[in-house]
Structures are given as structure tokens and as C-alpha cells.
């Protein structure tokens, strides 16, 4: 598996800050990162009774589109994601696996009735992508609230943390075994 990370913007979503995202994710992970657009039909993953999209099934589909030269692929979408038992998820990854999906829908300030803020949205997107990649590298949640691997179940918690791994998580990263190849 290569070290390269592919940030795949799904379907028609391609925000103006995609290049900033690439640069900042690269700095946080110390890996080569590229961005691309990926057309995946989202309708099959739509749950009409919830008005949301099934993150696990979408992740499985995303992995089928992972190019051989990408060690990790992160699908980034603007639709709201869920897993069956939870009301929503910001993102989902396989622990120690090559794939992850991140939704930016609940990262928008205006989702919470506040004025839109593209810089804040980018900050949050960077943290969520770096967080899910951390799971892909094999990291679990970190008790340090300022570490990007701390668990965030609401958006204010995302704002509290930095976009970098803390020294303990960096130590773990340098000792973790290679990632698994299994598909969701």
C-alpha cells in the first residue's frame, strides 16, 4: 500500500477551498495528498424515511473506486450521513482500513442558524478529514481534547480541537502496524 492519500469530492460537490484542504491535510499527516472529483450515484444510499444517506454502504462503494496508487481514500460529500443506530455521523472510517467518508453538511455554521463562514467550514473539514484518516491509520479516540483524534459528537467539540495529532498519537502512529485491506 502506498502512502498517498486521495481526497475524493463526491459527485457535484467541489468547494473553492479544496486546494487549502489538500495542503493542510498533507501538513497534518505528513503524506502526499491529492484531490479529485469522483462521480458516485448517491441515490442507492438514500434512506427516504430519514432523509439521510447510509455512511457504511457509501463507504463500501467508495472503496470500489479507490485507485491502486492511493493508500487511503476519503470521500467528501455535502449530504447528511448516518449509520443505522445513530441519528447522524460527521464521518465514518474503517479502523486501520483504507477508506473513510466525511460529510460537511453539519459542519456549516448556517446549519445551526448562524451566518455562513467558509473559513470555519474549512477548519472543521480539515479536522474531520484528518480525524477519519487517523482511524484509517489505526488510531482510536484520544482523551486529549485538543488532539484531532479526540471524539466529537457535536460541532463545538470539533472547534475545540486542533487539526494536528498530539505527541502521544504521533508516537502511536510511528508504531502502528500497516493498515488492513478489508472492505466494509
Amino acid at each position, binding site marked *: 500500500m502506498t502512502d498517498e492519500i486521495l481526497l475524493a469530492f463526491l459527485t457535484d460537490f467541489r468547494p473553492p477551498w479544496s486546494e487549502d484542504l489538500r495542503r493542510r491535510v498533507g501538513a497534518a499527516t505528513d503524506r502526499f495528498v491529492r484531490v479529485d472529483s469522483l462521480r458516485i450515484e448517491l441515490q442507492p444510499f438514500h434512506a427516504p424515511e430519514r432523509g439521510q444517506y447510509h455512511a457504511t454502504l457509501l463507504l463500501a462503494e467508495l472503496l470500489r473506486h479507490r485507485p491502486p496508487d492511493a493508500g487511503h481514500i476519503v470521500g467528501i460529500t455535502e449530504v447528511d450521513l448516518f449509520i*443505522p443506530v*445513530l*441519528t447522524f*455521523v460527521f464521518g465514518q*472510517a474503517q479502523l486501520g482500513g483504507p477508506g473513510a467518508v466525511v460529510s460537511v453538511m453539519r459542519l456549516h455554521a448556517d446549519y445551526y442558524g448562524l451566518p455562513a463562514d467558509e473559513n470555519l467550514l474549512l477548519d472543521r473539514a480539515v479536522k474531520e478529514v484528518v480525524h477519519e484518516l487517523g*482511524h484509517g491509520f489505526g488510531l*482510536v479516540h484520544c482523551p486529549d481534547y485538543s488532539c484531532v483524534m479526540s471524539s466529537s459528537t457535536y460541532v463545538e467539540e470539533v472547534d475545540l480541537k486542533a487539526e494536528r495529532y498530539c505527541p502521544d498519537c504521533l508516537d502511536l502512529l510511528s508504531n502502528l502496524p500497516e493498515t488492513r485491506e478489508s472492505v466494509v
Partner: protein
Amino acid sequence: MKKPRIMIVDDEQSVRSSLREWFLEDGFEVETAEDGLDALKKLESGPFDLMIVDLKMPRMDGISLQRRLQEVDPAVTVVILTAFAAVDTAVEALKLGAFDYVTKPVDPDELSHTVRRALEQKRLTEENVRLREKVSELSASTPIIGGSPAMGHVMDLVGTVAETEASVVIRGESGTGKELVARAIHAASPRRFFPIVAVNCGAIPETLLESELFGHEKGAFTGAHYRRKGKIELANGGTLFLDEIGEIPPKMQVDLLRVLESHRFSRLGGTQEIESDFRLVCATNRNLEALVKEDAFREDLYYRINVFSIDLPPLRDRLEDIQLLTEHFVEKYSRSMGKPPKRMTEAAVELLQSYDWPGNVRELENAIERAMVVGQGNRIRPEDLPLRVEQDAVRPRDRSLEALERAHIARILREESGNVSQAARVLGIDRGTLYNKIKKYGIPSG
């Protein structure tokens, strides 16, 4: 640090797999089960810190599972997962002891918060039990008292061995305080924040000793209605104190040796291997070397347990400690009986110091307790002490004519309440002679 173990019990595969991923990312060790029966089977792999249980499942639903859990593993914490429509049933689950319930689909923050609270409560409950045991241990325990060189040497040995992981055998006559020394070793060791678990191998019938030490699974034998942890498992992190190790039956010696070599064992009727990290301290009043020669005690077990040996002197060899011990027991029983402290009369002290104490410190403590109960006023007099003390007051090894004369004069003086003239008449000597003898032997006449 050990990962918390969680089991997700839900008949929907998608719920199981998504929660599994969710909790894996949170650093849990995760097991899943598709219904109550499956969950009970998987519980055999070892204890779980938390179970997340769906209410509606085929074969065995959440309520039935929870009833069974109360029998099999009452310590497990349960969070109920329920559809909104089944909240009434969830309330029933709470009455059965579930920690809380969450409705599907659950807000991630609510789930995370509930799980954190459940684990915190479990941790606090376990800590509370441990601290209660510790407090009760501390309040019940008697400090080791003695200013004699012999006891000073014992305490030096305790200090030396406590910091190590070496197995210790404490030897001494009955009542010399072997368990106190074991507890002192534990209290001074790095394991002191975990329990010391004591088993009296001589007091438990052979058939029960195995279950006492190793624990048993439900149904392991007739009457085993519940799973029970054994003392070896309970001593995990702390010290296992095996009193009267010389009485342990031959079969158990083999089993014990195996545990000491690997620190792994299975409960009776169980197949799962359990690990327990304990330090072993044993005590005996038997001559283990002689038992080994007679083939009554395994030589390999002897070498395994006897890494360090501490010999406790009998009380008769440290008579200088009697006064300190007596003062300690008087104070102890004054407090526990709510009575003002009493003082020993010199005659009573004299009596205690002239006794042989075959039952050692335990016998002395019993004598003082009795004296505190029956004694009138604020003094303990010879007549308040147990009869046996009075009858045996002259130590067998001290049977010289002078010693007998001294004890006899002291007794008559006591019987005559210190009246020298009356005592002289009883003894058949004049008052002057008696005064001389009282002075010669240093007998308190008050």
C-alpha cells in the same frame, strides 16, 4: 491500560456492525451477539464492562436476557437500546437494574455520554467496594506491637521483603500474629492499593477449598446456582494469603503449583483460562520441611512458596512486649465497648508476665477482652483475668522453689485482698517474715 470490554446485543446486523466500528474507534474491545442466547454464550469468554442490549430480539429478548444476567453476572452494566415505541418496556428493564436506555436512532452525543456515565458509575462502584474493603481491613486490623529485639528483627524482615515480589512463608505458633505480618507485608508493598485476600486452608473442607480458591461456573456442581469468582481471581493485582498452608490436601497442592507457575487457571466447570496477577504469602504453624520428608507436602511446591521465610517468636520469648500489648488491647476494647480506659494493677501485670501464654498474643487479647467485660471499676485486677491464667501463672520452665514461693505468696495476698496480717496467718508465718519475702520478691501488696 486495559481496554474496556463491551458487548453489543442486537438482531440487526447493520446495528451490530456500525456500533462495533463506533466503539472500536473509541478504543473498546468489542464483541457482538445476535440475541440473548448468543450473548450468554459469549459471556463465557470473560467478563464485560458494559452490554448494550436491544429489547426486541428473537429467541431471547432484552428483558429475558437481563433476568438471566442477574443470575449469571450481576455486576455487568447494561444500557438498553430500544425503539421509541417500546419505551414502556425499557422502563421495565430499568427496574430490573439496567443503567439507562437510549432510543434508536440515538444521537451520537447521547450515546457517548450514556456510555461514559455507565462506565464511570461502574468504575466508582468497584472503587467503592475496594475502598470499603480497605477501610474495614484497616479498622479491623491490629497493628504489630512490640519493642522487643525479636519483633524488631521481624519488622526489619517485613520491610525488606515487602518491596519485592517474592513468595513468603510466615512461620510461628498459633496466635503469634502470622496474619498480621502477612497484612503488614501487603500494606508496605506496591500492591497495597489492591486487596489482600485471605484463605484459611485448614478451616475449609477439601471439597469446598477448590471452589473457594478457583471459583466455579454456574452448574459446575450440585448447588452451584451462580457463577462465583474464586479467591485467586479476587486477589488479582494484590496479595493472596494462604493461612495454614501445611494443611492443604495433596491434589490441591498440584493445582496450586500449576497456578503459581503460570498465574493462569480455570474456574471449576469452566474452560476459559483466567489470568490473575497476585503475590503469594503463606503461613503455617507446621514444620514444612518435616512434612516434605514425610511426603505430606510436595517438595516442588515447598521450594516455590518458600522463597523468603519469617519466623515469629512465641510470646513467652518476648515477655518484655506484654505490657505494650496489654495497654494496646485495653485501649482497643475501651474504645469498642465505650468504656473509660482501665489500668492494670501491678498484681495483674505480674500475673500476666508470669504466665506461659501457649495461645500467644491471641490468648492475651482474649484475656484482656474478658477482663474488660467482667472487671468492675477502673482497674483490672488479677481476679478479672481468665481462671486459666491464674492456674497456670507459673510458667512450666520456671518451677524453682523460689518461683513457686513467690507465686504462692502473691496468690494468697490477692485472696486476702492485700491484708498482710491475714495472709501471714494463712501462710503460717509471722507478719515480719512475710514483709521480708514481699520485699525480696518485689510482690506488689496493694
